[in-house]
Structure formats: structure tokens, C-alpha cells
């Protein structure tokens, strides 16, 4: 996927900020998302992902900067833009007075779809969400994961060109999660553009062509998952559990063994070129870690490096 200049980006943000009273939740973000691309937003709690999603959904207005969706200004063409979007918000909210089926059908009406179309799609989407047998129930009686599935189904009722998913798989069991991934691959194959926020790094690696990492309202890195790993992490990681030792104190002594190291509450991560070699050198120097794990670097390491409080100066 490229953001070549001959195709109009589905979303383009330039210096977009969002302020709530005195507090600036989004502090000038720039990005462009090409048609058909799967674009991810990663970042710790409070980074400003949801605030950004809501602006891209043409629901909340940027405080400053310029934002276009389908090349249109959401301040003027809000209804038209939203008609072509599907949104899975972070929080599940429903019409609690209506059954599952009526929730979906009424949503179709808000999009001005014809009733026969709505009925067909509702049946198919309830099937997809594995909720057909609960169709006439009130939404309140569903489990958390079922509500999540219903929200996802609802977002597809208007066959959106751009699907915005804010932590879509939070609360889903592994089976439901893979079912969603599979649906997202199919949508992507059909040319639907996807925007996803997630705290699951494996999900981001699986689903996203390109992603940005946000922290404190800013974008701190951007690229394809593999590229980000290459740019911001070493080739391999050696994880050490040192048992009773105070991790903070040993950090200084371990520093010389790695390009960089990350001290977590339960373990120390050594970013190295070869985990094997490093472990051998540690043993030579008399280190006897309780447990060790050698692995390739992942997006999680990039995330920790960019947003965690690292010990590097």
C-alpha cells in the first residue's frame, strides 16, 4: 500500500488538535490513509487514540488543523461522510428499549436504507455475530463479548467504504476474535479501508499494513509493522527473570551486555543482536538468571521503547 499522490487519501489529517477545556488530548497529528489500506493506531491509555477516532468518524470536531475524509470537510459534509462510514466505538452503546434485531434494523433506517435490504443484512449480520438465536432478546441481557459482537455487526449494516474500529476485539474470546479477523481480511480484499486501534500487538501486526504509535497526543512513530521493528528494536530479545534480585540495581551491571535494556516489574529485557551469544557471555560472567527466554523482536518491544519509561538516557 502506498499513499501515492494519484489517489486521494481516504483520510488526511494535517496538524489536527483536539482540546477539552484546558486539556489538549490530541496535539497536532499528521497522517494520510490510502484507499484500501489497513491503518493502525497504537498507544498507551490516554494517548488520544479514541479522541482521534471520533474526529475521523466525523462525530467530534477538531479544535484546529485540517481534516478531510473522502476528500470532504466533515464540518460541512458530516452526514454524507458518516453515511459511508462504519464505526465500532470503544464503548458499546445500544438502544436498550429495543431487541437485538430491532437495534440493527433501526440502525439501517438511520442510514436511509430500504427495508428489504435492511432485513436481509440484519439476518446475515446476526448470523455472522453468532447471535441469531438471541435476535428477539433485549440487548441488556447479553454478555460483554456478545455486545461487542453486536456492535461490530451493527457497524457493517450500511456496507461502509471505511470501517473505523476502536479496540474491536477487547472482550472477545479467541474464537470470536479470529472470526472478526477473518471478516476484516474479507472486507479488506473487497477494497474497504480499515482504521484500527488496539492494545494487542499481535493483532496490529496481523491486520495493519501501516500504523502509527501515539503518545501524549502526538504521533511518535509511523511505518509498516516490520519496518517499525527494524527501526526501533534490535534483532533479538533476551528476557531474564532474576528472581529475588532488585531489578533496578542490576540494570546498571547488565547495561554493558545489550544495546539497550528495558526493566519491567517482573523481568529485564535485553535488546541484542544475538540472544544466544549474549546468554553465553552472561553465563561466563557468572550470571545465573532464574529463567530466560530468547525471541525475535516484536511490535511490543517497539511499543515499550517508544512509550514506556525506559532506562536509556
Amino acid at each position: 500500500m502506498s499513499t501515492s499522490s494519484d489517489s486521494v487519501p481516504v483520510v488526511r489529517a494535517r496538524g489536527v488538535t483536539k482540546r477539552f477545556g484546558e486539556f489538549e488530548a490530541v496535539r497536532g497529528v499528521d497522517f494520510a490513509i490510502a484507499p484500501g489500506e489497513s491503518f493502525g493506531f497504537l498507544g498507551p491509555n490516554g494517548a488520544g487514540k479514541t479522541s482521534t477516532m471520533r474526529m475521523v468518524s466525523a462525530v467530534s470536531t477538531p479544535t484546529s488543523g485540517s481534516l478531510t475524509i473522502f476528500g470532504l470537510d466533515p464540518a460541512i459534509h458530516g452526514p454524507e461522510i458518516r453515511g459511508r462510514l462504519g464505526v465500532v466505538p470503544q464503548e458499546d452503546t445500544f438502544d436498550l428499549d429495543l431487541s437485538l434485531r430491532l437495534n440493527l434494523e433501526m440502525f439501517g433506517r438511520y442510514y436511509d436504507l430500504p427495508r428489504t435490504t435492511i432485513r436481509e443484512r440484519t439476518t446475515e449480520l446476526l448470523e455472522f455475530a453468532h447471535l441469531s438465536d438471541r435476535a428477539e432478546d433485549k440487548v441488556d441481557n447479553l454478555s460483554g463479548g456478545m455486545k461487542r459482537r453486536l456492535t461490530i455487526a451493527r457497524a457493517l449494516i450500511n456496507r461502509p467504504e471505511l470501517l473505523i474500529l476502536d479496540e474491536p476485539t477487547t472482550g472477545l474470546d479467541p474464537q470470536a476474535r479470529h472470526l472478526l479477523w477473518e471478516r476484516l481480511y474479507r472486507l479488506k480484499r473487497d477494497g474497504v479501508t480499515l482504521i484500527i486501534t488496539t492494545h494487542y500487538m499481535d493483532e496490529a501486526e496481523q491486520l495493519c499494513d501501516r500504523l502509527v504509535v501515539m503518545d501524549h497526543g502526538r504521533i511518535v512513530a509511523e511505518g509498516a509493522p516490520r519496518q517499525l521493528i527494524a527501526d526501533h528494536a534490535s534483532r533479538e530479545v533476551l528476557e531474564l527473570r532474576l528472581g529475588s534480585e532488585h531489578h533496578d540495581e542490576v540494570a546498571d551491571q547488565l547495561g554493558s551486555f545489550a544495546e539497550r535494556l528495558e526493566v519491567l516489574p517482573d523481568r529485564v529485557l535485553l535488546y541484542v543482536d544475538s540472544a544466544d551469544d549474549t546468554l553465553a557471555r552472561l553465563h561466563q560472567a557468572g550470571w545465573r538468571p532464574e529463567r530466560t527466554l530468547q525471541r525475535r523482536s516484536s511490535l511490543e518491544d517497539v511499543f515499550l521503547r517508544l512509550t514506556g519509561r525506559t532506562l536509556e538516557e
Partner: protein
Amino acid sequence: MSRVLPVLGSRRARHVVERNALFYRSQWLMFASGFVEPLFYLLSIGIGLNHLVGSLTVGSHRVSYAAFVAPGMLATSAMNGAVIDSVFNPFFRLKISHAYDSILATPLDVDDIALGEALWALTRAGLYAVSFVGCMFLLGDTSSPWAILEIVGALATSFAFSALGLAACTYLRSWQDFDLITLVSLPLFLFSATFFPLSLYPRALATVVAFSPLYQSATLLRGLNSGQFDGWMILRLGYLVALGLVGLAVAARRFRRILSP
């Protein structure tokens, strides 16, 4: 904004009306009870007090107490119905279930939601008003065929109160705050010359009462009930419609602040 009157929403507001109709389809008993309600109003106070009070003067006519109080009851019923529809359900959907938040992901805008809720309250009130005026004819509480126009007056009343109610519900923080609504609507009901003529109030109070939308509504309806037209009627009607428009504008603004900060 491409709209002439941005506060007034768009055609999409009709889907909010549709949603409410869909909901009440499963609540038909509650819906139907509204058609019986006029009988409670008219039979209780009308018949009860008619013999005690006798007749009263409205304009240049003498009318029975039942005919005097019936338009006041219609105005009260239009107010109560509008307030219940525009305060309770929207509050639930705005602040408890957050159903409006999900609607805003669709092409609908906040002003469409505000307008749709007001239109729904108006639709329901209109149906009840027809039933109410029908009952008044049946019970002989009217003294002119023009009384049929009371339906229009009742609609204006419902519009004013549903829009004001919608604006008010955005300020409520919890179910406890609903006492505040009673705190306003009860004195309105008791001090709006719905039971007895304004001339019986002390002068100072009468001036205050004149601003009460319920008083304006009751007086308008009372004039129509006996078929006595005057220029004030236009003003009273205008007052109610203006209050409705202001209420709707405030409601849409408040909805926007709460739903898309």
C-alpha cells in the same frame, strides 16, 4: 451549514420519530391509556365540581363550570404528556443508555435528534388531543363547533412544552433531579388559571401568571371552546410557538455539548 435554520434539524429527524413509534408498538397498552386519560380529567374535576360551582363568565358568555375547566384540563394534559415524553425517555437515552451516542455515528446530527424527539412528542400529543376534544364534545363540555380548533391549540402547547422539556432534560444529572421537573410543573398547573379565572388571583400574582405558557394555553383553548375569537389568540399562539422554537434551539445546543464535546 447548508440549513436555513440550523437548530431545526433535517428530514432525517423522521427516523427518530420512527424509532419511537417502533418502541411504542411493543408498549401499546401504555400508548392506548393516553386515549382514556381525558375521561379521567373530565369526569373527575368537571363533574365533581360542576354542581358545587355552577356557572362562570368567559368573555361575554356564561358557561358551566365543566365547560370552563375542560379546556384547562386539555391544556394541562397536553403539557403533562409533552413533559413526560420529552424528559424521561430522552434523559434515559442521553445520559443512561447513551443510545444517542450510537445514533450520531450515522448520518443523523444532534439537531435531528432534538427535532425528532420534539416531533414525536407532538405526534403523540396530537393523537391524544383529538381524543380529548372528542370526549369534550361527547360530554357536552363545548359550547361552539369552533372547539374543534382546540386541537391546534393543544398541539402548540405540546410543542412548547416538549421543546422546553427536552432542553430541561439535558440539565438533569440523575433520576433524583426529576423532582425539579415536578417542582416547576406543579405550581404551573396550580397557578395558571386552569381551575378558576385569572380575575380571582391577587393583582401582583396575576401579572406573573400571564407569563405562564400553561395560562396562555388554557386561555386560548377556553376562547376557542366557546367560539369567541379575538386578536390576543394569535399572540398567545405565537407565544407558545416561540417558546417551542427557543426550547428546541437550547436543546440542540445542549445536546451538541454533551454528545460531541
